[in-house]
């Protein structure tokens, strides 16, 4: 009996649901149709910088300005950790959905994803002429701009004037040659027991900015072009020379203890700020730069230099060294965005002169816009960097390597410093890995 009752109840429920669904709709009373309000939109933005207190004011400003102009649009900013950003982005790519707007480096990491990025030329119009560092943000197949650069980035070395003074060295005279650097480091180690350089090798990238300077002091222009085009093998004599200098520095004990488990951002910089090392290899713009260091240890204690000469035929004086600089980071719109027009408007705001001026002020960024005049900022570091950027520049050594080879180099570089491999072995291995020789 109870089974029959249950069946009856189930049939009744299903019937009533069907009848409700089939019921004729109640006719609506005629009304005057109001002007359609724009439908609410949510744009999701991923980046790897907004967690940085120096960078956050810029994104906050840009989003605020954008939302004032577009009140029906909500912007959700999701900062991701830098070390895993591209891995996380990869998971979104595999699902073919994710953020509308992404921050990308202007290097192979953008090129490898260029087919997923919305071409921006038709949206930007004449504003495109104001963007500096565009080359690194183009689709290499079509030549279209697929990202708006917001910074120019490059490598410099910084030194602690305080440590130099403690060591009895002239705090206003950084070393000019490699030999002078070696001599200074010997003095610093002997007199202060402090480390020569602080690096961070946990993610394997801690040698990049150190090597960028040495490459600029060693490679000819043609060799730089060959390296960028990935035509130069890892065991080229010039590359071996640079790596031998790294090995020499390693043998001399230049790095701080625990460098292999320290991060480049920001363990190495914090170590330098704490006055425990004399030099650190850093950047010119918005991260690991003079602003971050000055805020931590006082601008008066921070010295900045372009590097040291190695080959007199490349440069006999450090002031003649080529600059390490390229389009840094920029914003792109993903093709899968359901609101591409609005996403482009957000990107335009993020790359606008007024918002980038905030970035220049808050993070000491060298912004990638010709109509934001960094010379208007009186900071001596900025002025010096702007002067250097007027000189011939090469893409930083590390920025032109593809992702797979870069990841492998990140594994090999710590082994080189730990003595688990040699320069000859690691270059031979990287040749096989990258070029399958």
């Amino acid at each position, binding site marked *: 009996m109870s*089974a029959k009752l249950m069946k009856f109840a189930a049939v009744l429920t299903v019937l009533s649901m069907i009848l409700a669904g089939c019921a004729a709709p109640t006719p609506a009373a005629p009304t005057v149709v109001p002007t359609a309000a724009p439908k609410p939109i949510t744009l999701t933005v991923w980046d790897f910088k907004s967690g940085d207190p120096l960078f956050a004011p810029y994104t906050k400003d840009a989003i605020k300005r954008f939302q004032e102009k577009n009140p029906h649009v909500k912007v959700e900013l999701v900062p991701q950790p830098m*070390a*895993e950003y*591209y*891995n*996380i*982005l*990869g*998971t979104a*790519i*595999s699902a*073919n959905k994710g953020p509308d707007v992404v921050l990308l480096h202007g290097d192979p*990491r953008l090129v*490898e*994803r260029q*087919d*997923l990025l919305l071409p921006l030329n038709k949206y930007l119009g004449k504003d495109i002429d104001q963007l500096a560092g565009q080359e690194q943000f183009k689709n290499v197949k079509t030549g279209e701009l697929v990202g708006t650069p917001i910074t120019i980035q490059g490598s410099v070395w910084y030194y602690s004037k305080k440590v130099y003074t403690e060591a009895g060295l002239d705090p206003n005279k950084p070393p000019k040659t490699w030999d002078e650097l070696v001599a200074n480091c010997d003095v610093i180690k002997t007199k202060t027991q402090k480390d020569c350089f602080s690096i961070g*090798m*946990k*993610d*394997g990238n801690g040698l990049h900015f150190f090597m960028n300077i040495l490459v600029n002091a060693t490679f000819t222009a043609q060799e730089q072009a060959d390296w960028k085009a990935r035509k130069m093998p890892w065991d080229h004599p010039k590359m071996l020379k640079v790596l031998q200098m790294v090995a020499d520095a390693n043998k001399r004990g230049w790095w701080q*203890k*625990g*460098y*292999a*488990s*320290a991060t480049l951002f920001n363990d190495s910089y914090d170590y330098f700020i704490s006055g425990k090392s004399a030099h650190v290899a850093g950047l010119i713009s918005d991260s690991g730069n003079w602003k971050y260091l000055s805020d931590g240890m006082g601008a008066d204690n921070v010295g900045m230099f372009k590097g040291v000469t190695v080959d007199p035929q490349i440069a006999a004086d450090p002031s003649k060294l080529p600059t390490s600089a390229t389009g840094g980071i920029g914003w792109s719109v993903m093709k899968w965005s359901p609101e591409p027009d609005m996403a482009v408007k957000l990107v335009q705001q993020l790359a606008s002169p007024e918002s980038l001026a905030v970035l220049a002020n808050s993070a000491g960024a060298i912004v990638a816009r010709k109509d934001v005049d960094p010379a208007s900022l009186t900071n001596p570091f900025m002025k010096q960097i702007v002067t250097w950027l007027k000189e011939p520049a090469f893409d930083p050594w590390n920025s032109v390597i593809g*992702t*797979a080879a870069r*990841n*492998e180099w*990140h*594994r*090999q570089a*710590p*082994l080189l410093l*730990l003595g*688990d491999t040699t320069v000859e072995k690691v270059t031979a291995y990287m040749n096989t890995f990258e070029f399958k020789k």
Partner: protein
Amino acid sequence: MQTQFPGLPAARKPLRTWLRMQQREPEKLWAYLFVAPAVLLVLLFRFYPMLTGIGYSFTNWDGINPPQFIGLANFQELFFKDLLFRTSLINLFKILLTLPLWIFLPLVLALLIHQGVPGWRFFRAAFFFPTVLSAAIIAAIFTMVLRIDGAVNLFLGLVGIEGPDWLGTTQTSLPALIAVALWGQFGVGVVVYLAGLATVEQDLFDAAKVDGANWGQTLWYVTVPSIQPTVEFYTVTTIRNLLAGLFAFVFVLTAGGPGASSTLPEYIIWLNMGSENRLGYASAISTILFVVFLLIVLVQVRLMGLRQGGDK
């Protein structure tokens, strides 16, 4: 000729006959209906992704372009060309060698608690505490603790030992990772074993006492055989954990380094499906891990079956 309906009870009978049987025993139909949602969920969220993953492992899918079938090329590259993957297998093997520690450390601690050592209530709570923390948080804590200037080296310094950079040398990074993961997870084993020990009849221990057995003899001849099913269950789950449950520790503690000294297959899956855009390749690694685990479980089940047959 009778039509076959695979998967249906009394599969040789035609559908109409089967349905008539359900009408005579309606409770069976209701049983199928009640388990159907759970079965559907398992099929949808476990089996379907697993099968599609296995399918992708035979393609060159990069997440951007449509996948193209490439046969066994991914597997050939993994086993014959990819030094990183082979290194990660060696690391995995080293971790599996520590399996006895993972199995028997919680057992010893559970036995001590079960026997009521002084402070056993405190120890029971303390041992379980790490399991309420996520692996990422545990790893973040130990990243600080194991630094060259961290707490461990500080204490070692007090007794005149200069500790290494635990996470920054190729010799110590993997052992340090294993130790941290063990710390984070052994509490689960203690709880599992305590539950198993609670099912052992007290009469057995009394009888052993009467027979004059000491602590060690009681442990070996009474306790361990009595909780053997629990040990076997925990061994299977621990192996699964070691094969595919240490990602967070690798990710936070060492990023697989220095070099590849603490890289595990699941971390390579992460790199390939993420920054390197090689989802087909990552799927191939997942498939291999799945097959390895399946083989281990089949061997385990076979041994358990032999043991039960021997007991009879």
